[in-house]
């Protein structure tokens, strides 16, 4: 899974420094360690079916984390992704129930593809608002997206009155079936959610390593002033990354509500924190400018496989929280050793 992206860090060979190798590959080694330990502890862990189930869980966080990584590469942060996930899920559910147009006395049942497009557009719109606030009105990203965290969640609750849309399967006579395909179907045994993650990851990998936009993103995250003076459209890049993050959250919202065949307004609460954790565990720098798709995916898998593993061996969910926290702190600590240590060696 993790090596589906054409990462641009493949060339980081040479240098026989073992410590450096361990540091750079730490998420990978952590994942191996997690799999080995849990396989030893539980015979059910290392089975193909369990891996697929866990991968399906990871897909949600992975999608959020990929969007989050783009924002973090830019030196920002997007706290709204969890709420956007909830909002877009509810929005999709709302569309599936049919839109009543009272003036004409008809109820429109948009086909599933239209639901998907409209939901993505909503995610992009929330991201666009975040981007405008950050890029043009100079609101700190933390505050701007904290605001939209609340607003998006509130709107989701308003739309459903706090209730959950339950029947998202659609009806054949209305021609809007197929919504559950995203969450339930498998292609060649692989859940569609995982395939969606893979496609988004490959797209993100190409975006970062092969397009002008990717270069703009790395440069404006590393030093926005220098990038601007070199002719990089810094503001446009900033707005775009928040839109992409919103769209990733919308995709995650679609996959999740499809998996559950229901859309609740509280879905995705605190998921933004897990997404940030995955990005950080994957070696990205919160200062911006450093991070890869490969690392972020590894980070998402480390966190997902760890918590699922703890469930399988029957550890209390309270302990899961403690372990996840410890992993995050450890990852950030290693980050500062990797990036901060160079200056000290002098």
């Amino acid at each position, binding site marked *: 899974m993790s090596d589906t992206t054409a990462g641009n860090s493949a060339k980081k060979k040479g240098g026989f420094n073992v410590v450096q190798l361990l540091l750079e590959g730490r998420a990978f080694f952590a994942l191996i360690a997690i799999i080995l330990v849990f396989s030893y502890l539980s015979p059910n862990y290392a089975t193909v079916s369990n891996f697929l189930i866990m991968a399906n869980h990871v897909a949600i966080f992975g999608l959020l984390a990929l969007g989050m990584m783009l924002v973090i590469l830019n030196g920002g942060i997007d706290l709204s992704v969890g709420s956007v996930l909830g909002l877009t899920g509810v929005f999709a559910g709302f569309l599936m129930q049919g839109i009543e147009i009272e003036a004409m006395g008809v109820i429109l049942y948009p086909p599933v593809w239209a639901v998907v497009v409209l939901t993505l557009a909503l995610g992009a719109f929330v991201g666009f608002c975040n981007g405008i606030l950050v890029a043009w009105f100079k609101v700190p990203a933390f505050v701007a997206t904290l605001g939209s965290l609340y607003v998006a969640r509130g709107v989701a609750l308003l739309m459903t009155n706090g209730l959950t849309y339950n029947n998202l399967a659609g009806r054949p006579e209305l021609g809007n079936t197929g919504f559950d395909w995203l969450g339930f179907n498998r292609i060649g045994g692989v859940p569609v959610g995982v395939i969606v993650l893979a496609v988004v990851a490959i797209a993100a990998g190409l975006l970062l390593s092969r397009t*002008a936009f990717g270069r703009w993103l790395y440069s404006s995250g*590393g*030093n926005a002033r*220098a990038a601007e*003076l*070199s002719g*990089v459209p810094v503001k446009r890049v900033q707005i775009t990354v928040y839109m992409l993050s919103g769209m990733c959250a919308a995709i995650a919202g679609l996959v999740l509500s499809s998996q559950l065949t229901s859309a609740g307004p509280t879905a995705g609460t605190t998921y933004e924190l897990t997404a940030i954790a995955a990005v950080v565990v994957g070696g990205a720098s919160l200062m911006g400018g*450093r991070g890869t798709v490969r690392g972020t995916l590894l980070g998402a898998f480390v966190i997902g496989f760890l918590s699922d593993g703890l469930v399988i061996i029957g550890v209390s969910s309270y302990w899961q929280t403690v372990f996840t926290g410890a992993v995050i702190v450890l990852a950030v600590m290693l980050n500062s050793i990797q990036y901060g240590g160079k200056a000290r060696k002098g």
Partner: protein
Amino acid sequence: MAVDEVVLAARNVAKSFGAVHALKGVNFDVHRGQVTTLFGENGAGKSTLMKILSGVHLPTSGELILDGKPVEINSTVEARELGISIIHQELSLAPNMNVRDNIFMGREIMGPFGVNYAEEERQARALMRELEEDIDPLTPVEDLRLGQQQIVEIARALSVNSRILIMDEPTSALSASEVEVLFKVIHDLKAKGVSIVYISHHLEEALTITDHAVVLRDGVMTAYAPRAEIDLEWIVRNMVGENFDLGSPPATTYGAPALELRGLSVASHTGTGLAVDKLDLTVRKGEIVCIYGLMGAGRTEMMETVAGRLKPVAGEVLLNGESVLGLSIAQRIETGLVLVPEDRQRDGLVQTMTVGRNLSLSSINRFTKGLFTNTREERRIIDESIKEVTVKTDGPGAPIGSLSGGNQQKVVIGKMLVTHPDVILLDEPSRGIDIGAKAEVFRILAEHAKQGMAVVYSTSEVGECLSIAHRIIVMRRGRIAAEFTHDTTKEAIMAASGESLVA
């Protein structure tokens, strides 16, 4: 007090970082109550030597002798206790706190009821009186001018009874009058028996203040002499090992006007008044113009407005006869107008990217075909650029931080040159780079002027005006105060800028 008494001596000090030998057996003495200046290019080992003296590094071999006894300095705190303080180029003051609190930061005087502010204030006042500086200890440091902030740093060093004060590039950000104040303070300190170790790239300035000169090259002390026996030429010769010349104006034929400023006015960033005041300037193809002026003369504002970062309040900027004011920075780069900014760390380089990607940053569109970038085309552009500006690097994949200051500057210049501009503006291109790199930068510029590029560079060192520039414009308070041709004198330029030679 004994004349020429040695307080601190380094004996055969060597320092290696892995396979790199930064210092190879350096001997030198610091005399009581005198100024010892370390000269040397970037990477000659000055900073390493300073860090050894101030306890940041331990020498790999050799020893330090303080007052005739060998000492081992393991930390900056130990160095401070031994009376050795260092004032870094970047001041280490907390701008939000006042002068008193900064002076006693980290070693507050405690009374029975917490910090004894009254006593701290009394001592701070006494220090300021001693330095003959009229700074109220209760002023927040951010309200002080840079020169005054430096005085606060010195006061802090004196408050711990420092006998040896190491100053790393203390004048690099000061105006001429502030430099004068600083030099007066240094004279007073000398009279009190404080020894000073001084580092500066500003050779002429350093010569006016120093008593002893030590020249380092490639980690080796190449020359030592007391002030009376040396001159500028001696220093430069020992620093670079050969006769040195920053070049002369290339013989070019001027073409049509490439860049025209008409009545350009830019608001000052403090909000009151104009930083650039109705400036008119025409630069023709193939011409090199040097803009000289003190800090705050409006050079940076003028250049940033032309490049598109700032918006003018009035006036017109024409490139090849057409207005560029409606264009974004990216569009101006595309049409052939580029700026090499003053502060390369802050505005020039993306520290998280490699040398190659920094070089190609302004040319991304040129190697993007359709949706994707073309790696081979990018590589060609990077190689062309590295060759053109002779960057010394392990390769395009090396991190930008692995380059020396001079090579980093060449990367910033190369990034812009590879876009093939018609007009290149360089704001203080020689700041903080050694003389060898300076000469190379000027050589590159002269070559491009010969091919028809219009070059405008600013500098605060008079010597650099009289190198490759065909024309020298002196700016003062946002206006052109005077205009000279290549055959003028340093004195004339400095007089026009409102500066006098620091005695």
